[in-house]
């Protein structure tokens, strides 16, 4: 079932510089999608469009057949309940002056979700593997990996259908990274993730479908397994060949 549909979406600055050029893609419920691209690929802009933080210059984005219009307040309220995000830098994405409880509760309060905020927050914290007493602490008391868990708790607390994850493990150590990947795998049973990353291996671990972006265009898309095994586009092949590999185990 197609949940989000991106139709012929382009984005250009007034100066005329084109960032995204006629993108078409769909995100289906229950199927994580990996969006892979390097700097200059337009993946950050695509993310902003998918989050309703910017409006496409041409084309449209549909949520269950309804057009995503950032000026339509009634629609945006419902949209925000269903689409949440986690960002790259766990240090700048948490307000240092808010307690963890207030940080995680923000979507519930802002979107006026009818629920018991206290229990929803502690459920979300438990779901990301943080102790209940984390709620009254402040972000600086946590490590990078724990902060990213707080950010994930904020993203899932309103029980969204889709979570956009923007390079969420890039700033973390390998041993923390693997724990966050496990967490996202677990959470994938209740929400769909769109994993935006430069890291094909991360996408391969989490997403059955993949899109490769280069210079604002989708150069390849399809099931991740197929794309990895039999990349059709030269850029995909170059990307795979450039990814550092371990020597094969004996």
């Amino acid at each position, binding site marked *: 079932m197609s949940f989000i549909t991106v139709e012929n979406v382009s984005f250009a600055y007034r100066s005329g510089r084109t960032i995204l050029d006629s993108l078409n893609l769909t995100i289906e419920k229950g199927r994580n999608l990996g969006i892979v691209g*390097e700097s200059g690929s337009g993946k950050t802009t695509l993310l902003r469009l998918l989050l309703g933080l910017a409006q496409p210059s041409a084309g449209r984005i549909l949520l269950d057949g309804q057009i995503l219009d950032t000026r339509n307040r009634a629609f945006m309220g419902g949209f925000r309940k269903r689409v949440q995000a986690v960002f790259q830098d766990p240090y700048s994405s948490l307000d240092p002056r808010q307690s963890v409880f207030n940080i995680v509760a923000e979507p519930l309060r802002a979107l006026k979700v009818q629920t018991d905020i206290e229990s929803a927050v502690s459920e979300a914290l438990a779901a990301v593997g943080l102790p209940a007493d984390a709620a009254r602490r402040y972000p600086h008391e946590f490590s990078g990996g724990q902060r990213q868990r707080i950010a994930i708790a904020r993203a899932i607390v309103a029980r969204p259908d889709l979570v956009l994850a923007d390079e969420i493990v890039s700033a973390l150590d390998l041993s923390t990274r693997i724990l966050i990947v496990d967490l996202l795998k677990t959470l994938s049973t209740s929400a769909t993730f769109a994993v935006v990353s430069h890291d094909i291996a991360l996408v391969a671990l989490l997403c059955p479908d993949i899109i490769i972006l280069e210079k604002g265009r989708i150069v390849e898309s399809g099931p991740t397994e197929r794309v990895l095994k039999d990349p059709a586009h030269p850029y995909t092949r170059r990307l795979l060949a450039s*990814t*550092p590999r371990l020597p094969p185990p004996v």
Partner: protein
Amino acid sequence: MTALLTVDRLSIATQARQLVRNLSFSIAPGERLGLIGESGSGKSLTSLALIGLLPETMAATGSIRLDGTEVIGAGERQLVALRGPAAATIFQEPLTALDPLMRVGRQVGEVVRRRLRHEGLPSSAPAVQTRVLELLSRVALPDPERLARVYPHEMSGGQRQRVAIAMALAWRPKLLVADEPTTALDVTTQAEILALIGQLVREDNMALLFISHDIPVVAGTVDRVAVLRQGELVEAGPVSDVLQAPADPYTRSLVAAARTFDTALGRLF
């Protein structure tokens, strides 16, 4: 052959905390060693200590012998003489290593001039200029004559790192220290820079100390690895041994994590 660099029971501490403890390793001339560690492992502090660049709030004890000179306790003049000819360093973010207000040709030229004077060779402007263009083409920068005239912010990240490498190369160092040199770069650019470093190290027969958190990157670049955890050496040995049969539990967990990501990519092709 005697080692080019010998680190013996190196400890680094601030007044409040011990950051590196009893670290020992050595690098022979022309040898490539990888220092693997996560944040807080002390790997970058170690690279700074090698050339006497630790912040003043930190004290190093033990011994670091670089090209026959004891670094710990050495005066600034001795250290200046070591920095460059004995060991040259490239950093993660080339932007911070380059002067934003100086054209890159001049920046590389400054190093070339210093080295020529250091070796008692003539350092006339044309001699320097020729050498700068040679260096820029050695690091595979396209159109060196044009690029020599641009400012760092006008280049891509990969090009800036190439300039930083050219500046290190200008010293003809015996040891090249590369501290996370590709972490800020795109995957395809990273592959190019790694290939370049590998090629230059081979051609000039430089020793390489390659510092990174990224196991596959290190694995493809060096002969031997040392794994650091919270300031302590947990394991060291040839790359294949450490990656195929890690002895230490921490190394095992790191390699297992790296293996998980690697396996997801499928067979090597």
